[in-house]
């Protein structure tokens, strides 16, 4: 100091010291201002994340904007506010990349790579770990007809949350377009776990419930009821009917209000696959439709429930009854009715095998030419008397008569006509 005063004089030294002091003060103020701005930006960023977690998206966006304004060159504050759906964001990111120190460049590169991958472009920058594989998956699903694929991860470097979410959303979209139920479950589940309060969460919940191998009806109803918009709910249920297991269809259709059901849905609702046949008949009889009646008749006949089929038949229009009556008479082995309905036909002629006597029994086969085994109208007489039904056994077309000690003529009659006779001795 003394040297300075001796060389420059007291006045000049004083001025120099004042200038230096002023410069130091300015630097100190700048450092302090930067520290305050950094603190404000970090606080705004923290507030934004907490607001988003609390479901206040509006406040979160406002805080993110504030954080970016406070420190426009710090990636930590700028990147969360970048709108990746905006085409111009690439320019902003590249500009930011040029301004940030090398140690912060990796974060900008990751977001820039995500922005490009969402548009099907190569990353163009170096990204490591799980982010790299996920960005490749995102890029491959940029096309509308891309096939879904299983996501892979790096064991040591977990993915960035924004990249993981984008990859899962892209996989879900690809799986939905492809109608691949397994791939839909593979991406919808993680998306629901990540953000159960997101606007799409109720739809994801219904999708996962409907596509589950085991579906609880009450859980499915709760999941369906959580989608408030009826049109949205109906569209999703109808889409799920193409993807869900058949056993779930009647439960899904039951989520559609009856007044909004299409004819085929009404029919399916009445004929729920998991409902017992008797209950199906009751439901259909309460509000019969021609399609449901015909479908139910087929089911009753296939199940051998001619009693139920006759109930349903009564509700059919007269012109639709004739073919069903033939089916019913055939199922019952009612030859009389068949001849009445179809007239005398060669196929309905009775054929009887020769009577065989052995061990105190007489046996023969009886059936029509078409193979129908008549269960009514056949009368068997022995020695001029009707045979007690307790002494008759029928096994399909085989008729076995217990002769006891009776000897005489065995006659087989159909109506008034004797179609076979034989002299038998026990």
């Amino acid at each position, binding site marked *: 100091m003394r040297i300075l005063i001796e060389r420059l004089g007291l006045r000049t030294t004083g001025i120099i010291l004042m200038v230096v002091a002023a410069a130091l003060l300015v630097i100190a103020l700048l450092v302090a201002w930067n520290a305050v701005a950094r603190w404000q930006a970090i606080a705004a*960023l*923290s*507030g934004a*994340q*907490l*607001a988003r*977690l*609390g*479901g*206040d998206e509006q406040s979160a966006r406002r805080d993110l904007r504030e954080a970016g304004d406070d420190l426009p060159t710090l990636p930590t504050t700028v990147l969360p506010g970048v709108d990746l759906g905006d085409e111009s964001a690439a320019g902003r990111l590249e500009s930011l990349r040029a301004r940030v120190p090398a140690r912060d460049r990796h974060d900008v590169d990751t977001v820039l790579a995500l922005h490009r991958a969402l548009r099907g472009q190569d990353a163009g920058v170096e990204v490591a770990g*799980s982010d790299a594989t996920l960005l490749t998956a995102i890029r491959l699903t940029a096309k509308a007809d891309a096939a879904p694929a299983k996501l892979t*991860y790096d*064991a*040591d*470097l*977990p*993915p*960035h*949350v924004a990249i*993981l979410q984008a990859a899962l959303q892209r996989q879900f979209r690809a799986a939905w377009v492809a109608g691949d139920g397994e791939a839909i*479950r*593979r*991406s*919808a*589940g*993680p998306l*629901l*776990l*990540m*953000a*159960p*309060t*997101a606007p799409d969460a109720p739809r994801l*919940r219904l999708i*996962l*419930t409907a596509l*589950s191998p085991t579906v609880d009806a009450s*859980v499915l109803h709760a*999941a369906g009821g959580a989608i408030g918009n009826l049109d949205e709910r109906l569209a999703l249920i109808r889409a799920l009917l193409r993807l869900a297991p058949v056993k779930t269809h009647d439960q899904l259709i039951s989520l559609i209000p009856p007044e909004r059901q299409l004819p085929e849905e009404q029919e399916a609702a009445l004929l729920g696959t998991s409902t017992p046949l008797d209950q199906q008949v009751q439901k259909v009889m309460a509000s019969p439709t021609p399609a449901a009646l015909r479908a139910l008749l087929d089911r009753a006949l296939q199940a051998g429930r001619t009693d139920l089929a006759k109930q349903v038949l009564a509700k059919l229009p007269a012109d639709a009854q004739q073919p069903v009556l033939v089916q019913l008479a055939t199922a019952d082995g009612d030859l009389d009715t068949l001849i009445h309905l179809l007239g005398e036909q060669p196929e309905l002629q009775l054929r009887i095998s020769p009577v065989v006597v052995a061990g105190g029994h007489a046996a023969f086969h009886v059936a029509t030419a078409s193979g129908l085994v008549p269960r009514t109208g056949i009368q068997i007489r022995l020695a001029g008397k009707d045979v007690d039904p307790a002494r008759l056994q029928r096994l399909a077309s085989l008729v076995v008569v217990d002769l006891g000690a009776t000897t005489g003529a065995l006659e087989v009659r159909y109506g008034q006509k004797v179609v076979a006779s034989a002299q038998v001795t026990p």
Partner: protein
Amino acid sequence: MEAFRQAAFYAIVVALVYGVLKLVQYLDIVHVPENYGDINGLEPYSSYRIDGGLPFTQLRAGDAICYRLGPETERAVQFGWIAALPGDDIAVSDGTLQVNGTPSPHSGKLPIPDCAALRIPAQHLYVLSDGHQADSVAHGLIPAIAVRGRLARLP
């Protein structure tokens, strides 16, 4: 002698600063909000000391933590156990949370349909509580910034 005096002076200053920092950490406590009922046995208005200065990377699965769901108000303070850390795979099968293929001890029966595996992303946690009213089952992944600190234990 003078050098020894100076060294002793600086040692005392360092010890005092360290002591003050430790005291501040010791005084870092949270209060259980009114009407809280998400952890069985955690009484409203009771206080718990938290290890607020613990780095995120030192948290472990099973740790009891305090975190915030929303702006910094006492009402937003929540408690839970860490079920999964970054890099873990979580899935739901028959209402049970599976972490890396093993049922989570705090899972219970979750109201979530079967979900395929999710890899927990960086700087995030999956947290469980008893009532699942304010944990990850209800709110999803908890970001590191929401964690206020680790508790010695929860009831």
